[in-house]
């Protein structure tokens, strides 16, 4: 079970319990010393005189503290699980996410992983005449290079000039590319939403699975085209420097397959070099198909705040009544 929060910063409000408990302890000690000194003066025996009241005080404090914690958790918007919500769709929109990290420059596929990806994506764009297409570039960070448009020429122009030097941020945070793509689908669009990611999976940030999971909850379909080979190729770690050091970069299809599993039903992983992979990608993106209206079921996260509100109410009522009844029975 993967629990997420809509407003996680609200959880810090639970820390208010620390000063509140301190105030309680100080107040309780003051009360105890006054009460006991009075008992000693009047009856000379202080044993057990405070115990019933102390029990009730602690019980109430614990209950109120629990109620506060549950209420804070409810306010933070806890979510887990998904529910399938029917949604009408018409048309299709596709955002290509191109990994332009340095590992994509190796040539274990011809002419290079990046060149192969660009050609593959351009071929897909040509076969999606009715789809709106967009383009996200990702390296250490992600940037929306072309917003969703039917002007495919703009997408093809950028695909023609792909290079790691287009982004200065070092590293490879492919998950950020998926996140940027999810944000680039306008909310008022009825078109299906597909993200087609071209990558070798050789990322440094380890962010793909989380981003894939989030894309599922945003109602997008994730298609990953793995580019490269299992045997891989060597890449110069410090290009242009005298210190010649190489490292092997391979296609991480295990990671990419696991990301697709996280992305849920309808998502797909293909190896770019497999015969017929492009047809499978086109089918999955529903971009080559009809533009008629259709009903689809999109997964949405299930809000669980009511569960914690009930717990908070129970704890609150227990604090007020249980202590009172306990005291009532004693006397």
């Amino acid at each position, binding site marked *: 079970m993967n629990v997420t929060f809509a*407003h996680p910063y609200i959880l810090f*409000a639970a820390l*208010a319990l620390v000063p*509140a408990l301190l105030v*309680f302890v100080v*107040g*309780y000690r003051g*009360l105890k010393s006054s009460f006991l000194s009075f008992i000693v*003066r*009047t*009856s000379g025996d202080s044993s057990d005189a405070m115990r019933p*009241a102390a029990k*009730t*005080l602690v019980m*109430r*404090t614990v209950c*109120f503290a629990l109620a*506060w914690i549950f*209420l*804070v958790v*409810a*306010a933070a*918007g806890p979510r887990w699980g998904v529910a399938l919500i029917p949604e*009408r*769709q*018409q*048309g299709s929109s596709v955002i290509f996410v191109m990994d332009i990290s340095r590992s994509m420059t190796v040539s274990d596929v011809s002419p290079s992983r990046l060149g192969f990806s660009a050609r593959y994506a351009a071929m897909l764009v040509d076969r999606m005449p009715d789809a*709106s297409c967009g383009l996200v570039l990702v390296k250490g960070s992600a940037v*929306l290079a072309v*917003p*969703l*448009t*039917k*002007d*495919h*020429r*703009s997408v093809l122009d950028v695909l023609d000039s792909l290079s790691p030097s287009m982004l200065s941020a070092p590293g490879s945070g492919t998950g950020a590319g998926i996140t940027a793509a999810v944000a*680039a689908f*306008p909310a*008022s*669009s*009825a*078109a299906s939403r597909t993200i087609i990611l071209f990558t070798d999976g050789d990322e440094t940030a380890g962010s793909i699975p989380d981003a894939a999971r989030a894309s599922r909850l945003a109602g997008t379909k994730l298609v990953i085209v793995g580019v490269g080979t299992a045997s891989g190729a060597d890449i110069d770690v410090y290009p242009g420097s005298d210190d010649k050091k190489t490292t092997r970069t391979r296609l991480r299809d295990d990671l990419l397959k696991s990301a697709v599993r996280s992305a849920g039903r309808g998502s797909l992983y293909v190896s770019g070099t497999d015969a017929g992979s492009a047809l499978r990608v086109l089918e999955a993106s529903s971009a080559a198909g009809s533009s008629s209206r259709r009903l689809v079921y999109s997964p949405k996260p299930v*809000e669980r*705040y*009511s569960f914690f*509100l*009930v717990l*908070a*109410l129970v704890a*609150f*009522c227990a604090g*007020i*009544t249980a*202590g*009172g*009844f306990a*005291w*009532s029975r004693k*006397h």
Partner: protein
Amino acid sequence: MLSFTNPLWFLLLLVLPLYYALRKSGALRGIEFPLTLGDWNGLPFRWASPAMRAVGFISIFSGVFGFVCIVVALAGPVLFREEPVYSGTGTGIVFVLDVSPSMAARDIGNETRLDAARRFIRSFLKDRPGDSFGLAALGSEAALLVPPTTDHRVFSDRLDSLAIGEMGDGTALGLGIAVAAAHLANRDRGHSCVILLTDGENNTGEINPKTAAAILPDYGIKLYVVGIGTQGEVPLDYTDPASGKHYTGVLNSEYNESDLREIAQRAEGIYVSAGSADTLASVFADIGKSVPVSPSSWTRTVEEPVENPVILFALGLFAFAWTLRRLVMRAVV
């Protein structure tokens, strides 16, 4: 419209009269310390002051109101609203904006020509959520900055970041029109238009603006040419983004309206001159009338949960009640 997804939870409000009845009947009591009455050298008994009684009442009221808020949140308050949904990309509209230094002239009210153009473009955009907007800028060069897109946020962001002089010093009207046409050519005929906003005459670029304009009807693209600014001496103030040099002074503003009119005529389009904010507003209103707004494909009912502010309010009320009881009334629990 406010509605509740689980109104049965409101039955929990019955707990309040039940609690009151239990307290009144003595079945449920607060914490008490039974003491024998006698002289224990303590302070003499005093009734709580009216102020303290008021504080006590407010703290109880806050606690009860906090309870009510939790019950309301449990009932699932939601706001329903109708939201238009667009399955297509609507009309493709590309704004070609002159960003030559003369657009920094401050003669449209208190605004520069570029700022005034930006403002009216933004309001034009707001009324057309289903259309695609593109942005091209021209100076000594021209470039498409945003292809026609339904992602209005991207368009607006780029429009806002557009700077005077970023395309060089000059006015390549022909290049600007050609760039816009190239990116609209594939759209359905009659569903695209170019709106050129300029204050100058063509003085650079490889393509003659009249030649560029003449190809627009072949692709069913409408052209609107808006001559922006006044003629004569106008104050000017801008920083060249390339050199960082700051220019300030008076510009002798003049452009050949007949050239702009002829460019529009070649494209079977319309030329209008806008020398003030009012005329610019009427120009955009006229363009708005002649370019139909794309209708939505259907509307969907969006359920917007509003329980979070209610829970936060309840948290605030409980914190307030606690503060009053512990810190003002000095109660232990």
